[in-house]
């Protein structure tokens, strides 16, 4: 659970000392957004929209595999954070490669599903985070903050319908997994990855490198 930060003295230097001592919590940050959700709400009504959200969230298997890692949701957008420490303890999906393979399969299953008007298409961004801290400023909430969470959120602007955008840091982690598992990359969704893109994002003082996979 997150370290709760709440100091009443705004001039206190102690808070900075406490924050600087909190250890990082490396892991994978995932943002999932449902495409054209707001439009559907207005065009077809809240009932139909809610049904599609329900169906789609049920369909995204990673939400069932990592229910305790859903950090927050705002309507149809979810933030999931999976610390490495927790990932290693799972029965299934114990590595970074498995996470992206599952997400890719989910996008493909939704896209290929023969019946129409049951699910919404998704867009996804993922980043492997080193600079991240399990802290919260709100009592009783779990949350994660850090420069890498900002980067994951920025990557979302490069995603789109049936697309996963992922940082090079995440790709390198997944690649390490494939090597240790002796799985050739050509048999995986990573075989579909784009070339490396380098781009500047608002508020991040260096270019961010990322790739995409389209389902």
């Amino acid at each position, binding site marked *: 659970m997150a370290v709760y930060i709440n100091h009443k003295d705004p001039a206190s230097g102690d808070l900075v000392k406490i924050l600087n001592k909190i250890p990082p919590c490396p892991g994978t940050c995932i943002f999932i957004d449902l495409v054209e959700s707001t439009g559907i709400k207005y065009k077809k009504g809240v009932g139909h929209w809610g049904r599609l959200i329900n*169906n789609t969230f*049920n*369909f995204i*298997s*990673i939400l069932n*595999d990592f229910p305790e890692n859903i950090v927050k949701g705002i309507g149809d957008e979810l933030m999931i954070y999976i610390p490495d420490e927790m990932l290693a303890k799972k029965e*299934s*999906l114990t590595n970074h*490669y*498995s996470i992206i*393979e*599952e*997400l890719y*399969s*989910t996008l*493909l*299953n939704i896209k*290929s*599903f*023969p*019946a129409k008007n*049951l699910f919404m298409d998704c867009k996804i961004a993922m980043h492997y985070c080193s600079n991240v801290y399990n802290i919260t400023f709100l009592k009783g909430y779990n949350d994660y903050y850090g420069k890498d969470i900002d980067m994951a959120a920025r990557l979302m602007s490069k995603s789109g319908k049936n697309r996963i955008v992922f940082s090079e840091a995440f790709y390198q982690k997944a690649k390490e997994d494939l090597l240790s*598992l002796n*799985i050739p990359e050509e*048999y995986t969704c990573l075989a579909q990855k784009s070339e490396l893109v380098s781009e500047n994002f608002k508020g991040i003082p260096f270019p961010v490198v990322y790739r995409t996979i389209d389902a």
Partner: protein
Amino acid sequence: MIINTENEGNIIILSLSGRLDTMHFPLVDKELASLIEKNNKEIVLDCKDLDYISSSGLRVLLKALKQMEAGKGRLTICNLQPQIAQIFKISGFDRLFEIYPAKKEAVASYL
């Protein structure tokens, strides 16, 4: 993941045992692709000992179903354990596949 294949006449019965997830889906994908390529039109997937299926596992089954249907064949499923049946239900896959409670019924459906 253990895959066993047996025949009942022209019907191929593929028994899956273990976990059909990101680690194992390529094995099942390869096996099904090979059977479909050999023009087998009647395939039963016996899931009696299948303990877990992930999205990548479902993807392989959906791919095989589409290929079978395109070739005018039939892929049926039997013996789903309750937890797998639940996944099929919430994902809507129970509406895509012909699912039978036991191997006997699945085989009989081809006769």
